[in-house]
């Protein structure tokens, strides 16, 4: 719409009846819809009742002057209102005050038709820009809300992959996952497979939706390979090859394990922080054996290690985001060791609470996940 086509609804507040009629007539001749009020209080009441585009107000009026009317109108009207103050030439202090309280422009008495024509043309231009801005903001808000709803739906899907705390095969497990924004690249899983109980924790490079999409795909792929009978070495080699062949710089760090019958576990660490093994008798140590992240380099080998993992032994797997919570690795391990006496779900809740406390309410810079597993007595 051209600025000249914009229909203006104008409120004229003027205690001089003749001046008010003159203004109303001239403004109507310029294509505006005009109402009048005889003083500031009446004007303020009309502004509250109807939506006006422009307020034209005299300065000197009984009961409430033009300055006070503008001040109150600005506090009360929540849409854009173009404000013109009628004044005499040379009233510079009044004009300064009027600008401070929210006047946009001035009309100087005696008012001439040309002054009004210029003022209306300016108001139309400003209103036109304002309406375009409002339309654009509305479109942006609608788009944002749609995107936010999509991201929340995708985050729900990602959360649905995460196993609930409980028992799977030989393992009791508890975990928490906190993305730095709505979704992130951390994930973990536990599944009963032919050779025992498989578990993994991964951290896909990057943040937000791209990392989450990759993480979602990798979660599915790891589960598919493990339940299909592949061993840890083959799973790592396959994922490494598939990620490396992607036309981007994506990679992931991973910790995977296969808990077998009896008292052992096969563990493969690929660039993931070294997990903490807390023995049922209280012994504690981190497992540092491992190799490079998956997807960074072609033709690299990934070798699992064999460790003892008997009933009551607990393994704590965590992503690198933990270290962004004001706790270094040693401090985190010390805290885990000191809290290990409680049940696994209480242990994870305590760790989560401690990390949140240390962040002092700040959202994490990186995704944070902690997965704790424990062999169930007699579990296979």
């Amino acid at each position, binding site marked *: 719409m051209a600025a000249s086509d914009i229909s203006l609804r104008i409120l004229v507040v003027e205690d001089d009846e003749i001046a008010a009629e003159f203004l109303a007539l001239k403004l109507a001749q310029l294509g505006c819809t005009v109402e009048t009020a005889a003083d500031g209080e009446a004007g303020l009441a009309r502004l509250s009742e109807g939506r006006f585009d422009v307020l034209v107000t005299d300065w000197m009026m009984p009961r409430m002057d033009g300055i006070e009317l503008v001040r109150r109108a600005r506090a009360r009207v929540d849409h854009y209102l173009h404000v013109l103050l009628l004044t005499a030439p040379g009233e510079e202090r009044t004009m300064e005050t009027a600008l401070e309280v929210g006047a946009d422009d001035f009309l100087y008495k005696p008012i001439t038709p040309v002054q009004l024509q210029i003022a209306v043309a300016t108001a139309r231009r400003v209103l036109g820009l304002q309406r375009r801005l409002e339309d654009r903001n509305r479109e942006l808000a609608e788009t944002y809300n749609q995107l936010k709803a999509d991201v929340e739906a995708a985050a729900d899907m990602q959360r649905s992959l995460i196993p609930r705390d409980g028992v799977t095969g030989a393992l009791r497990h508890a975990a928490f996952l906190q993305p730095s924004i709505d979704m992130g*690249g951390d994930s973990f899983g536990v599944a009963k497979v032919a050779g025992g109980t498989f578990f993994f924790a991964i*951290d*896909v*490079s*990057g*943040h937000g939706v791209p990392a989450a999409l990759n993480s979602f795909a990798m979660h599915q792929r790891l589960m598919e390979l493990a339940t299909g009978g592949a061993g840890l070495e083959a799973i790592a080699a396959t994922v490494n090859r598939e990620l490396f062949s992607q036309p981007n*710089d*994506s*990679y992931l*760090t991973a910790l995977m394990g296969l808990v077998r019958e009896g008292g052992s576990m096969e563990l493969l660490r690929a*660039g*993931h*922080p*070294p997990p903490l093994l807390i023995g049922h008798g209280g012994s504690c140590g981190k497992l540092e054996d*491992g*190799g*490079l*992240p998956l997807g*960074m380099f072609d033709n690299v080998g990934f070798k699992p290690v064999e460790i003892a993992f008997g009933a009551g032994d607990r393994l704590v797997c965590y992503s*690198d985001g933990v*270290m962004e919570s004001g706790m270094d*690795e040693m401090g985190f391990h010390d805290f885990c060791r000191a809290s290990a006496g409680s049940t696994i779900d209480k242990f994870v809740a305590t760790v989560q609470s401690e990390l949140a406390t240390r962040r002092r309410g700040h959202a994490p*810079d*990186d995704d944070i996940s902690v997965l704790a597993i424990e062999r169930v007595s007699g579990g296979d």
Partner: protein
Amino acid sequence: MTSIEGDGELAVVRIGADRLDAAVTPAFKSALDEQLPAETRQVILDASGVGFVDSTGLGAIVGLMKRLPEGGTLVVASAQQPLRRLLQVTGLDGLFQQFDNVEEARAALGR
């Protein structure tokens, strides 16, 4: 801001930011695209002042190594503890030799 000094086959790449993360990495990669001389075979990555590197930044460092021709070398100078730890955890410390400063790195590379 990333700066790159080329000297024949050697280039010193200074990250020039206190973080190498998702916000900074695109500019770092653009600087490499635009300024890293084609003849570069050895790179000293000067990480002085870099207090935080995330997974995106680490990917960019690995990407810098992959840009070099076969037999090329990337070494890291002046890495602070967070980067040292990240390189160690990910096993990349076995691929990138580390030095306390650029001068030591130059000497080790015979420059």
